[in-house]
């Protein structure tokens, strides 16, 4: 087993312009783990993922992927090293077909995983424009796109169930569980704290850009004080 965690974020401070968003934030994700980052709207969850991916680089602190610093790298370099982001709002390319979305992502690397086996719903819609898919199908496409191309060791999932109907949320949850079973390391950002804690091995609670709590997913799920104080769940 590697001595290094797959991901180690060490004391990062991230800004949007002059606005200080993340304060001395640290977290770790071990190999094969699913770690949730939960918190209220505006707490800094998405900014944390953007910092790791190099889209909003931190001004201080270090981000190590498999023990190597990546905080100065461009997003495309970070992707080629094995970190993949499935962003908030999916950000698929709506005017391209499903197949073109998948093939484009695949062209950036060598992974030939047949995502259509994992996501049969996409197989039926290969020639359909991505913008015309339902919300759930678009989310499946966004996850599929994150799995092809350069080999993915760490998947950053940003609000994968946002805006989806309960039945579709269940489908997405099953996909996340299947990915975990396949040994993919996941850092999951979710506003739906209960769902995130059910899926995660461990979780961090973030509040106004600071990590305020860390524990096992089950532990947090059954800690009424944490749920009520930090997440407004009663």
């Amino acid at each position, binding site marked *: 087993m590697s001595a290094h965690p797959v991901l180690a974020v060490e004391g990062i401070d991230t800004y949007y312009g002059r606005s200080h968003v993340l304060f001395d934030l640290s977290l770790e994700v071990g190999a094969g783990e699913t770690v949730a980052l939960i918190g209220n709207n505006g707490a800094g969850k998405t900014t944390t993922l953007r910092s790791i*991916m190099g*889209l909003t680089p931190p001004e201080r602190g270090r981000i190590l992927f498999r023990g190597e610093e990546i905080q100065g790298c*461009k*997003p*495309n370099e970070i*992707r*080629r090293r094995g970190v993949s*982001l499935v*962003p908030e709002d999916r*950000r698929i*390319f*709506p*005017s*391209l077909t499903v197949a*073109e979305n998948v*093939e*484009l*992502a695949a*062209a*950036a*690397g060598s992974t030939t995983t047949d995502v259509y086996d994992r996501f049969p719903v996409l197989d039926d819609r290969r020639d359909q424009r991505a913008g015309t898919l339902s919300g759930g199908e678009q989310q499946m496409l966004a996850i599929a*796109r994150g799995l092809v*191309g*350069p080999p993915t060791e760490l998947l950053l999932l940003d609000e994968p169930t946002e805006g989806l109907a309960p039945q579709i949320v269940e489908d997405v949850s099953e996909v996340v569980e299947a990915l975990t079973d396949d040994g993919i390391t996941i850092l999951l950002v979710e506003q739906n704290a209960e769902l995130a804690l059910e899926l995660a091995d461990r979780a961090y609670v973030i509040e106004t850009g600071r990590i305020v709590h860390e524990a096992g997913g089950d532990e947090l799920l059954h800690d009424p004080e944490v749920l009520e104080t930090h997440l407004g769940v009663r």
Partner: protein
Amino acid sequence: MVGFEALVRATILGLQFGTTLALLVAGLTLVFGLMDVINLAHGSLYMLGAYFGVTLVDAGGSFWLALVVAPVAVGVVGLLMEVFTLRPLYGREPLYQILVTLGLAFVVEESVKEVWGTSAQNFAAPAVLAGSIDIAGVTYSQYQAFVLLFTTVLVAAIWVGLERTNVGVLLQATAHDPEMVDALGFDVSRVFTGVFAVSAVLAGLAGVLLGPARAVTPSMWFNVVLLAFAIIVIGGLGNFRGAIVASLLVGLLTGYAALLVPSYTELLVFALMAVVLLVRPAGIFGTATGDPG
């Protein structure tokens, strides 16, 4: 009374001018659609194509050599422009890029005056195309027919390339969301450099092709860049399909105006632009969201 023969001639000449404009505008609209850069130096790249063509032909090279070498040389100039002057400005207000490219246009104009002088220069069409050809009972120069055919094939190839190839898919995705394309593993800054260089090659090619038909002067960039921007406004900013259709429209309008009201040719183009802006502010093919088409 304008005869049928004159109308056919105006149509063919208008189409020939339109397809050459399409070549010029294709690059400009790709650069805007992908990079959000309003490249006011695009006309200068066209002018450099014409001057490089003149030099190569004068130096004893053939027109065909000039047709290949001059656009490539302009492509290298474009590549250097993008890397050293535009790349540091990405993410800033569009005004920075407008000012830089306008400055570059004046730098190129002054450099051209230093190297080639201020007087107009011409280069002859290749001897093999010096004759005439009969189309629908109307006689044209073989060179004009060649330009029409060559530019039509090239523009069609670019169109198919954008719609049907992997590179086209990458460019469509980059136009929609460059940050996401970068996060998928593509170096978007290289995509930008490549697109800008290809855009320069196309502008240079248009310069070489129109060189034998027009006087080559240090100020030729200005009218062309105005015309090119009128076309992309008419077609829809950053919309490739719109740019091609608008180029053909403007080419035909120019052809007919030259026949019927030659003094008002340019006025009519800008009047068309004004009408389109009033009726469809986003351009004929434009959308409020700026879909690259």
